[in-house]
C-alpha cells in the first residue's frame, strides 16, 4: 500500500544486502503473495514494462541510449539488472489502461439494461519504478483520485499496487529529473527502494523498506543488512547519476513565462517541425487525457462504452459543434507544453513534467521540450532582472 503519505514509514532499519543473482527471490515472494509482477523486459528492440515471471525476464546486461528522436538498446558487457533509463512505456499503461470498457448495455424489446464490469482488478507489483516515474504516479494520483471526483478503476488498481522503486544510476541523454526535482534518488513513498551498485569490481543490490508491507517482504527475504561501506558505494552511484543528466531545464519563472507568452513566435517555429502525431503524449507518464467510444454490435441490440487514451495534438480533441477550437498545430503544441509546465500548477499545485525525457526520445522529429521551454522562458524577464534575457 503506498497511497497514504509517509506516515507508514517504519523505523529506519538499514537496507538489506542482496546479490544480483538472488534478485529473483524478491519477484517470487511477490508472486507468492498474489501479485502480478510487472517490470522491465527487452522486447522489439526496446526496454518495456510487461509481466515478468522471474528475474530472467529482466533486461540483464542491457542498457539504452536515448537522444532526441532516437532510442537504442545495447549490451553492457556485464550482468546489471536495472542499468538503463526510462523504459519505452510509462506505468500509466497499467494504472490508467489505454483501452478500457466502462460499461455495456443490452437492449431487449425496447428495454435497456446497463452493466458495469465488477470483476476484481489485478493486484500489480511494479518492479523497477524509477524516481521520475514514481513521482509521475503520484501526479496521476492527484488527477485520478485525489480531486472532487474519483476514477474508481484507477483507485482500485493503485490501492492494491506494490511498488518496488529503484534509485536511478543510469540516466540517459534525454533525462532531466534533476531539473524537475524528481530524481534520480527516490524520494516518494514506495514499498521497497532498491539501489544497484555496479562498478569497481563490485555488483550488488541494497533494498530498503518504505512501508510495512515492504518490510514484510524484506523479512521473508531474510538477508543480512548492508554494511556502511556498501551503503556508501550504492549512494555514490546515485550521486554520480545526478551529475550525469543528459539535459537540464531552468524552471524558475517558466510557469509565468508560458502563461504570458501565448503569441511567442517560438510556437510557430516549433509547429513547423511538430507532426502533431501525439507520440509525446502517449509516452508521457503523466498525460492522462482520454476519450470515449461507443462500440455497437451490428444487430443493434448490444453496445459498450470504452475509454481510450487520447491526445491534445489531434484536431478532434477540441471539437465543438461547428469545428475545433484548436485547429492550428501551433495552438495544439502550445496547449500541451503550457499544460505540462504552467497550467498543471494551477490545476494541481505542482507541474505536470517529471523530467523522464520520454517525449524527447520518442518524438519522431526529435523536438526537445527543454529547448522549446527554455526559449519561451528566456523571452520573458524574470522578476528582478532588467530586461529580456537573450539566448
Amino acid at each position, binding site marked *: 500500500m503506498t497511497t497514504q503519505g509517509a506516515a507508514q514509514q517504519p523505523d529506519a532499519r538499514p537496507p538489506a544486502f542482496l546479490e544480483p543473482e538472488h534478485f529473483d527471490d524478491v519477484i517470487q515472494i511477490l508472486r507468492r503473495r498474489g501479485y502480478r509482477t510487472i517490470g522491465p523486459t527487452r522486447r522489439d528492440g526496446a526496454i518495456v514494462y510487461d509481466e515478468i515471471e522471474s528475474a530472467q525476464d529482466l533486461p540483464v546486461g542491457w542498457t539504452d541510449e536515448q537522444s532526441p528522436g532516437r532510442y537504442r538498446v545495447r549490451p553492457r558487457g556485464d550482468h546489471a539488472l536495472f542499468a538503463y533509463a526510462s523504459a519505452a512505456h510509462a506505468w500509466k499503461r497499467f494504472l490508467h489502461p489505454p483501452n478500457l470498457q466502462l460499461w455495456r448495455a443490452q437492449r431487449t424489446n425496447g428495454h435497456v439494461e446497463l452493466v458495469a464490469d465488477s470483476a476484481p482488478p489485478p493486484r500489480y507489483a511494479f518492479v523497477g519504478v524509477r524516481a521520475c516515474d514514481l513521482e509521475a504516479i503520484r501526479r496521476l494520483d492527484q488527477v485520478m483520485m485525489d480531486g472532487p471526483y474519483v476514477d474508481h478503476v484507477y483507485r482500485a488498481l493503485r490501492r492494491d499496487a506494490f511498488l518496488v522503486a529503484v534509485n536511478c544510476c543510469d540516466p540517459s541523454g534525454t533525462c532531466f529529473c534533476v531539473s524537475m526535482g524528481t530524481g534520480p534518488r527516490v524520494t516518494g513513498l514506495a514499498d521497497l527502494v532498491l539501489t544497484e551498485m555496479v562498478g569497481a569490481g563490485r555488483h550488488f543490490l541494497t533494498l530498503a523498506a518504505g512501508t510495512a508491507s515492504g518490510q514484510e517482504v524484506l523479512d521473508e527475504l531474510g538477508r543480512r543488512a548492508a554494511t556502511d561501506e556498501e551503503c556508501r558505494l550504492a549512494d555514490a552511484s546515485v550521486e554520480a547519476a545526478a551529475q550525469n543528466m543528459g539535459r537540464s531545464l531552468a524552471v524558475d519563472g517558466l510557469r509565468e513565462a508560458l502563461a504570458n507568452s501565448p503569441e511567442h513566435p517560438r510556437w510557430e517555429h516549433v509547429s513547423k517541425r511538430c507532426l502533431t502525431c501525439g507520440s509525446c503524449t502517449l509516452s508521457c507518464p503523466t498525460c492522462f487525457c*482520454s476519450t470515449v467510444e461507443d462500440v455497437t454490435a451490428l444487430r443493434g441490440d448490444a453496445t459498450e462504452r470504452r475509454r481510450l487514451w487520447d491526445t491534445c495534438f489531434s484536431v478532434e480533441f477540441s471539437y465543438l459543434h461547428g469545428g475545433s477550437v484548436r485547429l492550428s498545430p501551433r495552438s495544439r503544441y502550445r496547449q500541451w507544453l503550457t499544460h505540462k509546465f504552467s497550467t498543471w500548477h494551477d490545476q494541481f499545485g505542482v507541474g505536470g513534467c517529471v523530467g523522464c525525457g520520454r517525449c524527447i526520445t520518442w518524438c519522431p522529429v526529435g523536438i526537445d521540450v527543454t529547448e522549446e521551454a527554455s526559449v519561451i522562458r528566456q523571452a520573458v524577464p524574470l522578476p528582478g532582472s532588467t530586461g529580456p534575457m537573450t539566448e
Partner: protein
Amino acid sequence: MVPELYRVQRVRQETHDTFTLELRPQSGAARLTFKPGQFNMLYIFGTGEVPISVSGNPTGATLVHTTRAVGRVTHVMSRLRAGDVIGVRGPFGAPWPIDLARGHDLVIVAGGIGLPPLRPVIYHVLAHRGDYGRVVLLYGTRTPEDILFRAELERWRARFDLELHVTVDRGTPSWHGNVGVVTSLIPKAPFDARSAFAMICGPEVMIRFTAMELERRGVGTDHIYVSLERNMKCAVGFCGHCQFGPHFVCREGPVFAYDRVEDLVHRWEV
C-alpha cells in the same frame, strides 16, 4: 460513469431545429436535482453522449433539456419520442450565482441556444421575486422563427416585475420588434450598473461583446457571469478535453465569473 435510465415523457418541437425533452427516471424514483446552470450528460443507446444544460424548472416534476440538433448525437436525439429511454449522468458543473445575486438587480442576456441554460434562473427568480431587485431579460436570436419558448416569453413580457426585450438579427415582414445584435439592447436597459449581476450565455463572440458592453455601462467583471462551452466527454475532469487555460470547463464551469476568464476568451485557439 454509468448513466441512470430515464424515459422520455414528452417531446416538444420548439423551432425547426430545436427541441425540448421532458424526462422521468425509468425506475420511478425521484429525478436528480440540479441548480440553474448545471448540465447533464445525455446518452443515446449506441450513439453517444453529449453535455446538455438543464432548461427546466428546478422545482418541476420532470427533468427538462432543450437542445438544437447540430451533431450526430443530437440529430438522433431529435428523433426520440415519448416512451423512449435515454441515459442521464449528472448534474455537473458550477451553477449561476443565484444566491450571490440576491438583493441585486439582475441582467440576463441570452443569445440563440443560450436561452435554455438561463431559463432555470428565470423560473427561480420568478418563484423568489422578492429576493431580487429589477430583473431584465435580453434575448437575441437569428430570426423571429428561431425564438425559443415564445408563448412563455410572451407571458413573462406581460409581467410588471420583469423587463424583457427580444431582438433578431434578420427581421421578416411580420416582425415589428427589434432588429440588431443583443448588445444594442444593453445601453437602455433599466438596471443599476454599480451593483447589478449579469448572466450571459450564447456564442462566445456574443459573450465577449455583451461583457464589453456591460463593462462600458459600469458593471464590474466580478459581477458578470458567463457560461462557456468546450468539448466535454467525461464531465468530471478526467478526460482533459474541455481544458480552457487552467480551467476544466466541466468542473469549474460551465458558469464562470468573467474576471476569471476574460483574458482567455480574448485569446485565439486556447
